[in-house]
């Protein structure tokens, strides 16, 4: 098991290196540079800036220097916020995004799976229709519709909860609901499909023929086999949601990471683009490794210790 994990980490590092290289090349092929938008700069000042940041060097030298820095865990200084390093920006905004994201994913998993299970157990009855109606609404109504509606009606009109900002538990509710909605709907639909598939398996009939109660069958036999597809998507989904989403964070004025993803591209903030990409990729690779380990725990057929069948 330990050997497997170590090997996966080594592969993860290689993957990360490939991602770093590709992003670096792609980014430098974008038109413009970090200082192209500042019209007030004289050509001389621009040249000095380019030199300071090493942007006048040939690209492979820049690449070499960057990779060296990255492997010493230094993501460099932002071009857009010259007084702050990328490490600082991530450290300052990620905890907020992660907190919001973790709330949202927790709600999505609990409510989504419950809805999916209830729907499957009441296949083609009113509970099923209710759950699937909720799921379809959740998938098709985007966060930028749900968010402002919640913020306006619950936050402003009813005044029960604060409509925006991120200062304490009562501020967490509306953004969490908004962010969890789509994921919740996806989970519910997936779990329902998967449950229906498992319910029709022969081994469920075997369980029934042993005289087990409906509840025992659902909890001991059905759910555990039905949850595999959920585990598959859970890793990437979690990473996606905890690294911040532009829309929800903008609507509720949450000081998260989401906006930096967009801003860094539009301002050609090289170090920021690279830093966020590396951070995101590293989390994703970690999530996939965890997913693989979880597979083995849930499904004995995918036990990894024995040569990784």
């Amino acid at each position, binding site marked *: 098991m330990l050997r497997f994990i170590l090997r996966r980490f080594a592969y993860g590092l290689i993957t990360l290196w490939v991602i770093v290289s590709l992003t670096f090349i792609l980014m430098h092929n974008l038109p413009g540079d970090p200082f192209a938008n500042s019209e007030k700069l004289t050509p001389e000042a621009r040249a000095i800036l380019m030199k300071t940041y090493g942007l006048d060097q040939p690209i492979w030298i820049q690449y070499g220097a960057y990779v060296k820095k990255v492997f010493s865990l230094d993501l460099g200084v932002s071009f857009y916020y010259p007084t702050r390093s990328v490490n600082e920006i991530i450290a300052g905004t990620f905890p907020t995004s992660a907190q919001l994201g973790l709330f949202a994913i927790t709600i999505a998993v609990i409510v989504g799976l419950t809805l999916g299970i209830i729907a499957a157990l009441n296949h083609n009855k009113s509970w099923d229709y209710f759950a699937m109606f909720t799921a379809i609404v959740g998938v098709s109504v985007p966060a930028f519709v749900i968010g402002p509606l919640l913020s306006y009606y619950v936050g402003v009109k009813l005044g029960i909860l604060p409509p925006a900002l991120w200062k304490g538990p009562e501020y967490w509710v509306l953004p969490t609901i908004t962010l969890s909605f789509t994921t919740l709907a996806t989970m519910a639909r997936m779990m329902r499909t998967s449950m229906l598939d498992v319910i029709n398996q*022969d081994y469920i*009939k*075997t369980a029934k023929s*042993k*005289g087990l109660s409906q509840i*025992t069958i659902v909890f001991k036999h059905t759910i555990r086999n039905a949850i595999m597809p959920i585990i598959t998507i859970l890793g990437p989904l979690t990473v996606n949601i905890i690294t911040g989403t532009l829309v929800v964070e903008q609507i509720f004025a949450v000081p998260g990471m989401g906006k930096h993803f967009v801003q860094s591209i539009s301002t050609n903030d090289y170090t920021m683009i690279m830093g966020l990409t590396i951070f995101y990729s590293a989390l994703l690779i970690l999530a996939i490794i965890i997913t693989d380990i979880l597979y083995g725990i849930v499904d004995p057929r995918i036990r990894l210790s024995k040569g990784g069948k």
Partner: protein
Amino acid sequence: MNNILEVKDLKVSFHTYAGEIQAVRGVTFNLKKGEALAIVGESGCGKSVTSQAIMRLIATPPGEIKSGSSILFDGKTDIVKLTDKEMESVRGSEMGMIFQDPMTSLNPTMKVGAQITEGLIKHQGLSKQAARERAIEMLRLVGMPNPEARIDQYPHQFSGGMRQRVMIAIALACNPKLLIADEPTTALDVTIQAQIIDLMRDLQEKTGASIIIITHDLGVVADIAQRVVVMYAGKVVEQGSVDDIFYNPQHPYTWGLLRSVPRLDNDEKEPLVPIEGTPPDLFAPPKGCAFAARCPYAMEICLESDPEIENVSAGHSAACWLLHPNAPKVERPVEVGGHHNG
């Protein structure tokens, strides 16, 4: 009371978008204590549905056991009338079931030990440890080598034959009075088939359980059963002892089944003899004999009305107009033991 099971006029339908499928249309048979009964017939004749109705494993809806049906178990309880809760205490403890495909009928994410002990803990109130010991004993009984180690393994670590042995251990764990085996050897290769049948016969002798074995393999019937029920299109067309069915079959469908078995003792290369045609549509079963359309001896009356069940001798009956006193005499195309005539 000598009968462990009395099935009377069992009717099962499935309600689908296309209409009502009458899968079982009035099946009556008895099973004596300690007896092995085979239900034979081609795919879709209702034999699996019958067996699942006995264990009340038919999902309702879409399935429905029609009123008027009765399944008297152990002389007292009518299975059809039990509540779901009452049925749970019968399933697994009084009757056990083995399914067709051992590759899919065990839960892949549970150790086989846990799958055997589940029922024991529920029905017999055994402690975990006691149930485990009983499970090991069961595995040894079904011929599993090294049961102490294998009890902690998962189904994917077993071969098909070994998995079927585990299934048998599960079904017999609580010493049921009735064991239903739904095509237990169909998914296995031939040498393993023989082992499983031997094992079942052996266990029947040891435990005294009654067995219903569903099959379309007449070899299996000859090996294990004492009595045979032949089903066609949701009805019993003939039933009797193994000797009656093999040596004195009365129904043209039974003749067809016997003729379709390839023979080892024939030197000449002989083509297989199929029963021509397909079974009727059970959305709208014919008003006459369901087999008439495929029967080489069909008469006018066969298309008009369904034949009553006629007793041929004690315990041997068939539903065919040929048994009517006014019917023309037809020479049976199968000899004793299934030799072809001519």
